[in-house]
Each structure stands twice: as C-alpha cells, then as structure tokens.
C-alpha cells in the first residue's frame, strides 16, 4: 500500500503546472473564449508535442501508456488552467471508448492519430431522455444491404464542432452499437453552440445517414460494457479536473481574504470566514480521497468500479457546490463578474457536475445497487 507519486509523475506534474501558469493564463483564456473556434489549434499541437494527448493511450497504439493515476495528475493541472481545448472529449472519453470497443485494426487506424494531435473525436451518446448509463437510446441503426442507416438526435455532444470523427451510440437489432461516423456524411446536421463554461458542443441530427458495416465498432465486444468502463474513466478524469479547480478557488479565496478590507480590517480576520475556508479545505481533502479511491478501483470489476465512481461523483456534487459557492460568496459581487477568474472556475465546476450523471443520479445508482 503506497500513496506516494513516482519521480516521473512528480516531474510530469511540475511540467504541466509550469506550462499552465506560464502559457495558459486567464487573459489568454479570455481571448480564446471570443474566437470562433473557442480554443487554440496551436495549443492543441503543443498538447500533442508535450505528449499529453498520447498519455492515456496504450504504447502499442502510439501512446505513452500512462495509468489512470497519470491521467488524473494531468487533469488536476489542466483543471487549474481551465483549458478550453477539447482534451476531455478527444483524449479522455473518445480514446478510452475506442480502446475498449474497437478491434485492433480500428485502434491502429485512429489512436495514433489522436495521440499525434491529427484527429479529434467526439462521443455522441446523450439524448433528450437518456441517462448517463445509456440504457435508453432512441437513436437507431437499422441494417441495410451495405451497412446501417442511422436515425436520431444527439444532444450536448462535447467537442463536436471541432471533431473530425464522431463516435455514435445507436440501438441495433443486436443491442447497443457504437459507430465511427464522418460528420460530413449526408443527412447529418449540426446545431453548434457554446456551453456555459465556454466550451463548444452541438446538437446533432442524423436523418437517414448511411454508414458501412465496418463503421460499427462493437462487433466482438459489448458496447454497453465498453461504454460503461470508458464512462467510469471519464468520471475519474472529470473529478480530477474539478479537484484542480477547487484547489485554485481555495487559493484565490485565501488570497482575497488577505487583501479585501471591510470594517477596518482584513476580512480574513473574521472567524466565520476563517471557518468557511476550513470547510472548503475539508471538502477538498474529502474529494481528493474519494478521487484516489475511484482511480485505484478503475481496474476492478465493473460493480466495484461503478460503485467507486458513483461515490466520487456524489461527493463531488456536494463539495464542488460548497467550494464554488463559498468562493463566490466570499469574493462578494466580484465573484460573479466576467472579469474575475473565480466566476469562470465556478461555472466550469457547475458544468462538470452535470456531466456523466448528476450527484442525485449516482446516489440513486448506489441505492439501487445496494438494494
């Protein structure tokens, strides 16, 4: 039993930390927000050069074969930079799903391109009435002579506007399927928009979209369990990002309490605010503990893995709200202005909470599981 980091991990952490503080400051991010694309393609190439896109990918597919712990450490630091690049959509969620659902040829085709920063993916799984468990999927793929016909609508596809390829879940007569789909195919239409946290996403309509048989990736694997496993990895990555954000918010709040004067003294001298900071700190520690727990359970059986990721998501729903709201409250009105970073951290935290199942949904899953 050992909770310490390896030298390699500490070094990687330091490099990312330095990059974010030197190259991805708040002003840089604010200016990226207003661009059409909403992120920097140059930055993306830098991410590739730094090896971050390759980190979660197996070394036999052009990756660095990092563990979930490595991904977690990377995400904590990227979280602090509030990076806008579609890292989560491509390098985390899509790469993980591809790794688990596709055969070797398909993986050889795509994963090296992801690792090299040449191809971006997005996972189109969510629908109006779908849950994070994708047990309901109204999008259908019906068999034709040459392949499948996709029909349906996907919501909030993160990273979709910049994606070169889509991974689409659809119901087939043999159960859930995962398809790799070129977004320029006939019958596909995008409704692109920004999300509240400044990322980009789309509603995608598939109207009689023809794809080849080979587009279906889950022959020989179980799409449902592959999706389930990749979602659990995605949850760990999101929780790590959230932890990085919360660390930033705690630091910013501590600093504000040393700067802001009211009633003739630094507001940090008020005991009530001191205790609020202590509460934030305890929330952070609790989140970190459950994050480690979930990360270390990722390799376990599906039941234990589900349970651990649901636990961290439930705790995160609570702690991220506490930390985000307290940081805003203690900054006063400034906390909800666009010009201060605090509000942007708060918004990203809020969006992370809504991704991959809310705290209530995960609590419900835990209760159903226990019953």
């Amino acid at each position, binding site marked *: 039993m050992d909770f310490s980091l390896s030298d390699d991990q500490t070094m990687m952490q330091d490099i990312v930390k330095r990059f974010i503080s030197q190259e991805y400051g708040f002003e840089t991010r604010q200016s990226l927000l207003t661009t059409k694309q909403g992120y920097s393609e140059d930055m993306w190439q830098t991410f590739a050069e730094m090896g971050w896109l390759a980190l979660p990918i197996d070394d036999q597919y052009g990756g660095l074969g990092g563990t979930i712990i490595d991904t977690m450490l990377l995400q904590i630091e990227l979280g602090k930079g509030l990076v806008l690049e579609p890292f989560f959509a491509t390098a985390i969620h899509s790469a993980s799903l591809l790794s688990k659902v596709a055969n070797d040829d398909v993986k050889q085709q795509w994963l090296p391109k992801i690792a090299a920063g040449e191809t971006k993916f997005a996972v189109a799984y*969510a629908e*109006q*009435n*779908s*849950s*994070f*468990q994708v047990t*309901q999927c109204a999008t259908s793929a019906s068999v034709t002579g040459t392949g499948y016909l996709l029909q349906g609508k996907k*919501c*909030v596809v993160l990273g979709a506007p910049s994606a070169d390829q889509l991974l689409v879940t659809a119901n087939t007569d043999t159960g859930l399927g995962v398809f790799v789909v070129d977004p320029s195919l006939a019958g596909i239409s995008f*409704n692109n*928009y*920004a*999300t*509240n*946290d400044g990322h980009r*996403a789309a*509603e995608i309509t598939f109207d009689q979209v023809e794809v080849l048989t080979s587009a279906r990736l889950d022959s020989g694997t179980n799409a449902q369990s592959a999706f389930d496993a990749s979602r659990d990895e995605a949850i760990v990555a999101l929780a790590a990002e959230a932890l990085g954000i919360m660390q930033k918010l705690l630091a910013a709040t501590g600093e504000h309490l040393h700067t802001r*004067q*009211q*009633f*003739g003294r630094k507001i940090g001298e*008020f005991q*009530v*605010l001191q205790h609020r900071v202590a509460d934030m700190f305890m929330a952070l520690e609790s989140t970190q503990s459950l994050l480690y727990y979930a990360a270390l359970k990722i390799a376990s059986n599906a039941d234990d893995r589900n349970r651990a990721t649901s636990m961290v998501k439930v705790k995160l729903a609570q702690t991220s*709200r506490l930390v985000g*709201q307290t940081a*805003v*409250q203690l900054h*006063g*009105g400034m*906390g*909800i*202005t*666009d*010009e201060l970073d605090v*509000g*942007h951290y*708060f*918004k990203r935290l*809020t*969006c992370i909470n*809504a*991704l991959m199942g*809310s*705290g*209530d*949904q995960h*609590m*419900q899953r835990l*209760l159903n599981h226990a019953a």
Partner: protein
Amino acid sequence: MNISFTPEELLFRDQVRDFLNKRAPAAVKHKQTAGLRLDKHDMVAWQQSLFEEGWAGINWPVEHGGSGWNATQKYIFFDEASKANMPRIVPFGLNMVAPVIYKFGNEEQQKRFLPDILSSKVWWCQGYSEPNAGSDLASLSTKAELQGDHYFVNGTKTWTTLAQYADWIFCLVRTDNSGRKQQGISFLLINMNSPGISLQPIITIDGQHEVNEVHFDNVQVPANNLIGEEGKGWTYAKVLLTHERTGIARVAESKQRFCLLQARIKELQDTPDQPHVNSVFMARVMAVEIDLVSLEYTELRVLSSIATGNAPGPESSILKILGTELQQAIDELFLDLSGLHALPFVPDQYSLGYAGDNLEPHYAANTAPHYYNNRKVSIYGGSNEIQKNIIAKQILGF
C-alpha cells in the same frame, strides 16, 4: 389565530384575479414562464397596468396615491400575481426611494418626484454600494461638497442595477468626514443626465449586463435635491434597508418558480424512462417545498405582527437569509433537473420570434445562467453573513 379569508377578502381576491386575467401584459407572462429576461419595456408595461388600476403604490400612504391595502390584501395580491406568473415590482422607485421621499422629503420634493414614480414614468436606480464599501456600507467615500446652491459630487458607485435604464439615481454621499463614519452621510437625488456622470457596464458570469459602475466627475446637483437634513442619510437609509431585506425574501416569486418546477417535474414523470426525476431528487424537492411553506408562514407572522403595531426585529434578517437560500435552492433544483441539458448557452432561444432551433428539453434553457446570476442574492442587500451578525446582536447583545 386563523387563516381563512373573510367574504370581503375573497371578493378582493376575485377582483385581483380578474385584473390579472384581463390586464396583465401577455408578453411579460410568456417571458416569465419561459424563464427569459425581461427588458425595460416589459417591466414598465406591467407596472403601468397596475398604476392604471390605482394599485401601483402598494405600500404607500393613501394621501400619496397608495392602494390603502391591509396586510392580508397585500398578501392576496402578491400571491395571485405570482400565481399568474407576473414579475415582482422593480423596487428602486416604488419601494425604495419613494418611502424616503414621502417620509423625509419636503412637500416640494414630494410633488416633484412621487407622481412620476407612481406611474412608472421615471426609472430610478440605487447609488449605495461602492468598490471599497461592500458589506461595510457606512465606509462609503463618494463626496458631495456644497458650493452655493449646488452640491458637487465626486466618486464611484457600483453594482448599480439597471442604471442603464435609469433617469434618476438616489445616492448616499459623504458630506462630512469628521465624526463617526455613519454620521456625515447624506441622501441625495441626482438626475442621470447630469454632465459628469458616466456608466461602465459590469458583465456578470451569466453574460448579462444587469449591473454597472456609475462614475461621478464633479457632477453639479441642485441643493434642493437633498432629502431631509445633511448628515442624516444613514438614518433614512436604515429605515429602508430593513424594508429592503424583507422584500429580498421574495416569497411570492419563489412560490411562482417552485410551481413552474413542479409542472416540469410532472411533465417528466409522465414521460416514460426519463432519467432526471428519481427518489433522491424528489426528496430534495420536498425539502424545499417544506422550507417554502415555512418561509411563507414566517412572512405572514411577521406581517401580522407588524400590522398589529410591532416593530420588525431580527425577523427581517431571517426573511432575507432564508428567502435567498430558498431562491438558490430552487435554482439548484432547476439545474439538476436539467442535467446535461443545462450546458448549452443560448440565451435568446425560446423568446418570441427567435430564428434558430430551440434546444430540447425546453425547461433546461437558461437554468444555468439563472443559477449563476442568483448567487448575488446571498451577497447583496447586506450579505447573509452580515444578516447573521444582526440576528446574533439582537439576541445576544454582542
């Protein structure tokens, strides 16, 4: 002690319902139901419909055009208006500066200002907060120096809500620096068209321009725009603040939003296999409903106590804290009900005449911006931490 209405009260309720059915602006109702922001025109249209009915001065004395309603009638009106999805009244003119003018202003000022406030012809904004005086309001430093018949005002006010619409601003200004900081504060009315006033919008994290910084650069203000005596501004404002806090509870508005929430939950419960309404979520909804009933009864008890001649005690601070916590709890429920669908930031969708495609589900639109923006309610009007200090002081004497 009883909660049933007298026949007269029931008659009054029917009258209010009739008015709301026939006269309340339909466009306002649409926006309220869809969770869209109201613009100046919407708010004025609603208030002018009230004015035409003689109902604009709900808390005003009858001699100044007040509606003359007792506490129960006021309760009925606000309850019905909220059930009809009407917005609250913009407080700055009708509920904030007007009471100061009719209580502490002279007759000339009352004649000059009150009619246009009552008819919502003139839009007011509030100049209290300053960049370096947030919760510590009394440490404000905007200076007004009397030279002859005019004050010359210099300084900056901030968090000034909807100042971009305003014709006038009522300000707390410092006319004296010598004594305690609460002394030397005066209450001054300033025309927003005066040379030397400039606005700087503050964009909030919901992407809206709702608040502003207002800069005063040697702004010349006639001395007869001073309310009451120089140096008494703090006293006048304090009377108002207690009132403001009670208003901030916004119980009727919370009831309205909670009803919308329940309607949306009902829709979802009728949808097979929907993922958002589960027993864990519903337990939170029920807890909020209990708090809502509790808050409504607390407000009724306070109003009843005030109506029988008692001065409001720590109750106004309680209403402020619990009312704002409840508003924020309802925001969280909307947000969580929307799940992933709260993410798209397309503020204009669902407005009448919107050209693009509206994203489904409809109830998710703008739930996140509303949640973000409403973090302000526990900060403004004296932060909830300050309110707890006030409560503790009244109980403990510390």
